[in-house]
């Protein structure tokens, strides 16, 4: 964990000032510190005390060049044994504050180095002694009296983590790493000056990737001698890891609250019994007009350090202990782990359909196999099946992209096209859940008004519902126009043997090859329909899970030979030497209308980019982005492989866009211009809609109209 806790105050003369920062010290730079050895060591920093971090060294050199007093800067090391900390010593480094706050520190530095070269610094070695010189010319570079100080005069405190002795913590007025100074200063200004929160006490979370994320807890402490009798403090945690900080937020806030409450309790214990504001104002307004303030609560000009406010000289030691405790606990609470790849966000679009009656059908073995089968190029779906309740989640088709992957782009296009132009979509399958998921996905691309979804065991005509989920065995009336519906069969099949090589598949075996599981499946399905003979003539596509791309597609013309299984695809896919048992689903797509330019899309989908690069179609050049077909647009969204949340948002945006287009088309229709070719053409141009997508608009508008009429 890379975190830092800082305490900052709204100082009367200086505004926001950081007074104490506690942070990790890198284990490398901190060898275990024997407390006894350091006081005696005259040359402490290089010998046994561990070399300071390189950043400090570099800063020290800059200081020595600046400072006229003592360039050696061999500050003595001393240990003041404090009950609160495991090991306390003075960090053998010059503070960065010396860089910023020039004058005062030089004064401080010279006596301490001179006097204490051979012995531990015992008492307040002139810290803040030359306070007159601090109020010099420019206000920004003044040291502030509020800053960290402890009676023994050291400038930093150390602790070793009780759990992990390699880990240590350091507290001093400014961060060890000078690069951190600016972010901390900014966070300090921001929390004390800019951020608003509710009431007198509260926490704020802010930050960005560059300066780190900050959780700041602000509170006030009673101080009779400051203006308004209050001083504003803030405790800030700063991390670079936003997720981690948010995850530990609750803990941190509770801890900070406790620390703040402690400080406030100490402060109010000092104050005389509380005068209510009313009596106070009375006494003043009744007394002499320009009320002279009593000396005991005259506001001071200078900021008062926390040690004075609380009358506890060792308050910073206590704070250090508290902060170390928070840091240590916080890092033990949560473990950071580096994860390869982008995180998967599973969106359960179909929660409402996921009733508990659906049992996971596959065993875990099967599932893992299946998932491996599902492995798409570049996108690995690795479900760590540690606990059994993720069973329900693993086999879902939870996004259109997933659906497209399993269907193949060509079939996906067809399915979507038929869906959006208003043909009835029938999804059949034995796994009701999968069926429902597929339906939910399809439903999602349609405007609300266009969806009438029905689940059942009986066929419903298209005017009853345009998306129909059926059981596997349900028959479909034979007299339907194949152009007006599309049938998606989802069946599963288990391969007990090694996957058949392509040669075992004969297209002629398809219908009666009893030993071929795929054919069985297909046949069983088909014979259950009394549609068999007729459906054979349909431009049906039988497709396995498509892995290697669309090139394996076999498109059948109407009246052609029976559907051929994609032998080549399965052959390449299931060739792994293990010859595993695979359970897989088969997606059969039958009937339905061809989407526009299906042939060209077949080719273009093989291209990696689908931007319609100079595609000529119908003598008309399709602009790259301007009037792409609906399906193209959708595919391009899916091609982006966005995180699920964003993808869903983009898709619903697309839907809304088309909805609003169709509203305008509907208005056109109402105005009676819909039959006028030229008007429609102009309208389409203005809407940036391809002519062939007019069907979609018609469908959407029709739904909208009927909805309206139905509403009365």
């Amino acid at each position, binding site marked *: 964990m890379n975190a830092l806790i800082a305490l900052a105050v709204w100082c009367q003369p200086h505004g926001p000032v950081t007074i104490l920062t506690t942070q990790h010290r890198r284990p490398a730079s901190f060898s275990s510190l024997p407390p006894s050895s350091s006081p005696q060591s005259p040359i402490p920093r290089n010998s046994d005390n561990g070399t300071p971090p390189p950043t400090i060294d570099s800063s020290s050199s800059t200081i020595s060049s600046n400072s006229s007093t003592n360039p050696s800067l061999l500050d003595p090391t001393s240990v003041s044994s404090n009950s609160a900390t495991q090991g306390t010593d003075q960090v053998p480094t010059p503070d960065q504050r010396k860089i910023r706050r020039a004058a005062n520190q030089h004064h401080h530095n010279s006596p301490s180095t001179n006097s204490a070269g051979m012995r531990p610094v015992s008492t307040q070695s002139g810290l803040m002694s030359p306070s007159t010189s601090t109020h010099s010319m420019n206000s920004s570079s003044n040291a502030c009296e509020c800053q960290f100080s402890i009676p023994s005069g050291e400038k930093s405190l150390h602790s070793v983590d009780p759990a992990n002795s390699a880990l240590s913590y350091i507290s001093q007025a400014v961060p060890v790493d000078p690069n951190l100074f600016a972010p901390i200063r900014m966070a300090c*200004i921001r929390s004390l000056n800019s951020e*608003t929160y509710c009431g007198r006490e509260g926490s704020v979370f802010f930050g960005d990737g560059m300066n780190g994320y900050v959780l700041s807890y602000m509170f006030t402490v009673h101080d009779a001698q400051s203006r308004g009798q209050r001083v504003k403090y803030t405790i800030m945690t700063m991390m670079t890891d936003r997720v981690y900080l948010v995850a530990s937020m609750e803990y941190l806030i509770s801890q900070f609250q406790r620390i703040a409450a402690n400080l406030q309790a100490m402060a109010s214990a000092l104050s005389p019994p509380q005068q209510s*504001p009313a009596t106070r*104002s009375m006494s003043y307004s009744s007394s002499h007009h320009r*009320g002279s303030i009593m000396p005991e609560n005259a506001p001071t000009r200078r900021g008062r350090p926390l040690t004075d406010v609380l009358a506890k000289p060792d308050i910073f030691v206590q704070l250090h202990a508290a902060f170390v405790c928070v840091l240590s606990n916080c890092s033990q609470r949560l473990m950071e782990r580096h994860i390869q790849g982008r995180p998967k966000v599973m969106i359960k679009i179909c929660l409402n359909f996921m009733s508990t009656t659906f049992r996971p059908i596959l065993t875990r073995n099967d599932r893992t196999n299946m998932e491996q089968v599902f492995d798409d190029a570049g996108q690995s779906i690795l479900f760590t099946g540690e606990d059994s309740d993720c069973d329900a989640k693993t086999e879902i088709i939870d996004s259109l992209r997933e659906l497209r992957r399993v269907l193949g782009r060509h079939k996906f296009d067809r399915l979507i096209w038929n869906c959006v132009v208003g043909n009835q979509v029938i999804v059949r399958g034995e796994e009701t859940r999968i069926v429902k998921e597929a339906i939910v996905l399809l439903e999602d691309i349609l405007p609300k*008004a266009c969806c009438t979804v029905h689940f059942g065991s009986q066929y419903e005509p298209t005017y009853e519902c345009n998306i129909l989920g059926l059981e596997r065995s349900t028959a479909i009336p034979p007299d339907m126009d194949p152009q007006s519906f599309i049938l998606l069969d989802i069946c599963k099949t288990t391969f007990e043997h090694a996957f058949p090589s392509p040669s075992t598949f004969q297209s002629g075996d398809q219908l009666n090859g009893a030993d071929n599981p795929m054919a069985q499946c297909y046949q069983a399905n088909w014979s259950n329909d009394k549609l068999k003979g007729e459906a054979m003539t349909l431009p049906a596509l039988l497709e396995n899970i498509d892995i290697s791309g669309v090139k394996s597609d076999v498109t059948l013309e109407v009246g052609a030979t029976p559907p051929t299984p994609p032998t080549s695809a399965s052959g390449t896919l299931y060739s792994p030497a293990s010859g595993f048992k695979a359970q897989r689903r088969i997606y059969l797509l039958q009937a339905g209308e061809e989407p526009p330019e299906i042939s060209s899309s077949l080719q273009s989908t093989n291209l990696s980019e689908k931007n319609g690069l100079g595609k000529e179609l119908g003598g008309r050049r399709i602009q790259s982005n301007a009037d792409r077909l609906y399906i193209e647009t959708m595919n391009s969204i899916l091609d982006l492989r966005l995180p699920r949340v964003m993808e869903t948002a983009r898709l619903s945006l697309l839907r809304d866009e088309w909805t*609003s287009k169709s509203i305008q088309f509907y208005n056109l229709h109402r105005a009676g211009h819909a039959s006028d070719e030229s008007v429609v053409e102009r309208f389409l141009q203005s809407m940036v809609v391809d002519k062939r997508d007019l069907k979609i608009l018609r469908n959407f508008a029709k739904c909208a109209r009927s909805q309206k009429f139905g509403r009365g």
Partner: protein
Amino acid sequence: MSYSDYGDNDPIYGDDLADEDRESRPRLMLMGLRRSGKSSIQRVVFHKMSPTETLFLESTSKINKDNIHSFIDFQVWDFPGQMDFFDPTFDTTAIFGEVGALVFVIDSQDDYMEALARLHSTVVAAYRVNPNITFEVFIHKVDGLSEDYKIDTQRDIQQTTTDELADAGLENVQLAFYLTSIYDHSIFEAFSKVIQKLIPQLPTLENLLNILCANSGIEKAFLFDVISKIYIATDSSPVDSQSYEICSDMIDVIIDISSIYGRAAIGAKSEGYLEDQQDGHDDWTQQQDDYDGSNGNSQHPRQGTQDSRPPSALVSNSSRAGSLNNHPVRTSDNHEAFSVIKMGNGTVLYLREVNKYLALICLLRAETFEKQGLIDYNVHCFKEAMDQVFELKRAERTRREMEANQMLEQQQRHNGMYGHG
């Protein structure tokens, strides 16, 4: 107490404005070193805090934005003195881009050399961001200084500042200097002059007042913002602070009395005032009327006068307060606040409500006041003229609102079709 506060600003939570509110709202910024009295000024002028109470104000740590809803809406921004807001980490254009006036407060009881340095850098930086800012310098806390010393201080500060600005090549930047103190009326007077610069209609208003004075034999006329007791316009005759003070006191008296003898629910009126509705101000009126009705003894008004009299400036007048003949008159023909106070020295104070934020107060000789009908009529004409002046602005605003509404409706119609589904 009624009208004690502008109210809708919580000093702790600050106040966030909707974007459309923010535009065309002049900003008045209070800057200066720490402990120079910025927050005190803001509290005393706009929140009616008692000056002695300001001792207990906390140090300001955030920019305290205060929305003032009055005859013109403006914002008062109170800056923390410790911070340098011209630092590049702050968005200076956002802060200073739209500012109307920058008030720099200098503590005159302190060594002001540091303050002058800060003033100089502030002026230079702010001028670079926005050359349209008017700069005002309040030489503050002068209540502790002797008269001579005040003048010396002002001259010194003025001299130093203008010299430095000239050195920096900013001769054309005009600084206005005021000696102020929250313990007397000087802060209100100074603020009046600052605010007046923010009012685009000021010349018209002054002209109207001039005409009124000339035709009615009025010695001095002020147009007051009732809540803050800032006068937003006066006729062109010179203002002496005493006449301003007595007018300011008169408002106090009227408000005090109306809150004592007011009939309407006390809780309702302070809210009502702010909710931009006429009823709010009708309360004020009704209280006046009530007071007039129940006006049996003149004891209370006199007491009120004495209490609110500042000790320093108006000693001579307040010694005569005993002989003041308070004589509020009720005119029943209209429903507006109206009050006349006749003073012992032959001066008559004549107060008339102009609209819900403003009151006209005239000082005139008792013998002129004999023709009260004429004055009433003239004031009536003046009010109509005022209404016309502000009508322009209102019309502009409503037009803009209508346009915005239309846009909104169109959008809704646009998306409406599936919205029902």
